[in-house]
């Protein structure tokens, strides 16, 4: 089997053959016949110059293929072929379109591996933009804010960073990540590769209709990028790649019932999900439940603002593992205590489960969900695989 490759394609049903992309492409990788406008796999370098100029959105299509479609194949199309299925043994980094940068794709594949199979986006999720900016051509963002989220006496330093993109288009969806390139070079003199950070603001901006976004970043001892980001000052310029991620997304369906389980900075995407629901839904929704673990209230990011979100929008279960005089309490313990409600979610076809945080939380959460499943006579692995294949079970851990 050939190693699968990512191919840029144009949706012939949506394209109106205006040839703007063809005129824009700096290397003449786009051509047309009387029926279709097509991208030459041999030439396209993923520079993305054609993406914003397309009036229809038909240009933003990607497939992972073992054998790239030829120009002749594409000229003959009346509609775009569906994404081919790869065997479960195939590497997710190679067969998904979470990112076009191989290194970023590998990082995301690793982060999603806890779901036990190929990740799928929720059926009603919006179409994400991927990799508009690359290592070679990063976007430049300006720091608008840098706030400490954890108390001064807490044992961790977690920061809320706001980045503004000015006139550069940087469309994101809740659940996506961006790459940040720390300045300088490693021991071999090579520039640092970008580090991935989940976006913690909704798609319309940290502030509605501003071209900005926020990140939730924890300072790691000796972490080159995390220290760089946590030390950023207002007005500093930052090199950014992305956006990345095409499956860990939120459903647009307001009736979807979301169970979100996280620890620490894993709360970033769920802050974005919650704000999205708050901003977009006037009416009733399918509900959101957050199970959020930290050592202490002082070290739980967004502890203050989170308390203010009404329970009618978000049912909150905050659990702490280091409170003096109290037993250690983890997210999986809370899931067991709420077994009845969790069981309902496992049976609800509108429910989505999201897990985000440190890799070490995966095992405990999975065991709790498995035991709750046993309790109601269903097999966890089967439920999980079915939910994942329907785009309703998402894991992003690191």
């Amino acid at each position, binding site marked *: 089997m050939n190693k699968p490759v990512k191919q840029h394609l144009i949706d012939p*049903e*949506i394209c*109106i*053959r*205006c040839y*703007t992309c063809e*005129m*824009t492409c700096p290397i003449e990788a786009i051509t047309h016949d*009387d*029926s279709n406008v097509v991208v030459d796999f041999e030439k396209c370098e993923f520079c*993305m*110059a*054609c993406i*914003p*100029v397309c*009036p*229809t*959105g*038909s240009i933003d299509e990607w497939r992972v293929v073992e054998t790239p479609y030829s120009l002749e194949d594409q000229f003959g199309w*009346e509609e775009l072929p569906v994404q081919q299925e790869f065997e479960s043994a195939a590497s997710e980094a190679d067969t998904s379109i979470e990112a076009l940068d191989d290194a970023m794709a590998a990082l995301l594949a690793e982060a999603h591996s806890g779901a036990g199979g190929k990740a799928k986006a929720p059926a009603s999720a*919006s*179409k994400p*933009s991927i990799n*508009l900016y690359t290592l070679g051509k990063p976007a430049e963002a300006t720091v608008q804010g840098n706030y400490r989220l954890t108390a001064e006496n807490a044992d961790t330093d977690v920061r809320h960073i706001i980045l503004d993109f000015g*006139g*550069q*288009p940087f*469309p994101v969806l809740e659940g996506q990540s961006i790459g940040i390139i720390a300045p300088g070079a490693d021991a071999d003199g090579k520039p640092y590769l970008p580090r991935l950070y989940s976006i913690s603001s909704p798609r319309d901006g940290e502030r509605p*209709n501003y071209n900005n976004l926020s990140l939730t970043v924890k300072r790691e001892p000796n972490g080159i990028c995390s220290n760089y980001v946590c030390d950023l000052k207002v007005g500093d310029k930052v090199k950014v790649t992305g956006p990345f991620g095409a499956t860990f997304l939120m459903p*647009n369906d307001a009736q979807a019932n979301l169970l979100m389980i996280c620890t620490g900075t894993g709360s970033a995407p769920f802050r974005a999900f919650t704000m999205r629901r708050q901003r977009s839904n006037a009416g009733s929704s399918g509900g959101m439940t957050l199970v959020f673990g930290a050592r202490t209230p002082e070290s739980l990011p967004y502890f203050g603002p989170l308390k203010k979100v009404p329970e009618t929008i978000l049912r909150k279960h905050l659990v702490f593992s280091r409170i003096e005089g109290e037993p250690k309490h983890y997210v999986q313990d809370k899931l067991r205590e709420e077994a009845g409600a969790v069981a309902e979610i496992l049976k609800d076809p509108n429910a989505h489960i999201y897990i985000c945080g440190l890799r070490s939380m995966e095992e405990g959460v999975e065991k709790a969900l498995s035991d709750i499943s046993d309790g109601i006579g269903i097999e966890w692995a089967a439920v999980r695989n079915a939910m994942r294949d329907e785009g309703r079970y998402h894991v992003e851990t690191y």
Partner: protein
Amino acid sequence: MLDLINVSYDTLIPNNVGLSNDKRVLKALEKWHPGYINWWNDLIPDNFQKSLVYLRTAVSVDPKGWAKFDYVKMPEYRWGILLAPQVEDRKIPCGEHAGEPAWQEVPGEYRALMRRLIVIQGDTEPASVEQQRFLGKTAPSLYDLRNLFQVNVEEGRHLWAMVYLLHKYFGADGREEADDLLRRSSGSEEAPRMLGAFNEETPDWLSFFMFTYFTDRDGKMQLEALAQSGFDPLSRTCRFMLTEEAHHMFVGETGVGRVIQRTCEAMKEAGIEDPYETDKIRALGVIDLPTIQKKLNLHYTLSLDLFGQEVSTNAANAFNSGIKGRYMEHRLEDDHRLTDATYPVCQFVDGEIKIVDVPALTAINMRLRDDYTRDASGGVVRWNKIIEKAGVDFELKLPHESFNRKIGVFADKLFDPEGKLIHGQEYDDNVNSWLPTHADGDFIQSLMVPCYEPGKFAGWIAPPKVGIDNKPGDFEYVKLYMA
């Protein structure tokens, strides 16, 4: 150094042409500006002026920068002067000067010809905004309302682009012409717009879609030809305008397609197989396919007239002097001078239509029109696929180029849509099934009721497959101002 990619906002008029260092032109444009704003404010009803519209604004001519989407009040839209980046060492692509360096100033001998071409192009831009001024009141959705306004602001910007060239390169004559662009008005008795098709009213949304598909496509072809000009500032202006013009093609093609889609769906739901059961189909509140064909016949043929005479010495002069090229001149492989070449043109010889080879130089208009027809037929193929997919037995067709013509060799004679020469009686007997009647217009008008609820669409048109800027279906493209 002059920054040609990034747009400067240090003057009232965003631009990438260094206006702040060009006091003479800046002053002239600032003098012209209030007249423009008055013109704009008179055209667009007050409540729409105050509404927030989700528009695309060009903030840079770099591909990543010109599509910035945001809510804007239309009078606050930043109409700018934007030229595509200068190509180093660009040569005149065609005509007797082919291969010489492109002109950065207007050559004296071509001044009058060039000014006229720019004025004709410039005149069409405000005209279409005038023609479409009443459509906002009957928009079938907020999505469509937004698309209308996007088309309007971009036509406005195209007017700016042409006015800049007039002010910058044509002195006092140019300023006078620029003022006249605001003085003439579509459909006016005293001072009509220069081209016939731009004095017709756009009375309903199907007409709007047909107009943007067929008539704006003429504009696109003219811009393509001017983008090949040896006069570099004109070429660069038109190249950037083309990226915006593509949006108008999109509105037209998908608009007509969505009307067809809805008609076919409604027929299927009601179990109507025969597309000619007009009364029954109209009773469903959708536009029957034969009426759509009639609208197509009308708009296509009106647009063909915009290309002028098939054989034209003016066109030959424009090409030969290097002012206007052919469609995709840079991709054509010939001598780009056409000294000995011929081109086949339809002519009317001894009472019959014949294909005659004429000197290619004189057939420049015809060639562009053929390219236009090829370009326009692409959408018809897509529309027919919608009909076929729905399982309706009907096929839309472009009529023969001789049908319903007012300009060129076929004017003053009567042809049917197949291109058969016919007599007055036969024409009169059938014209009601070839071209839209008053009754057809009245029926379409009866469907034109506004639908302003986010995510909802009037019953005669299907929702789009993809939102603008990837927005979800219920996105509020226009936040209407409620007085």
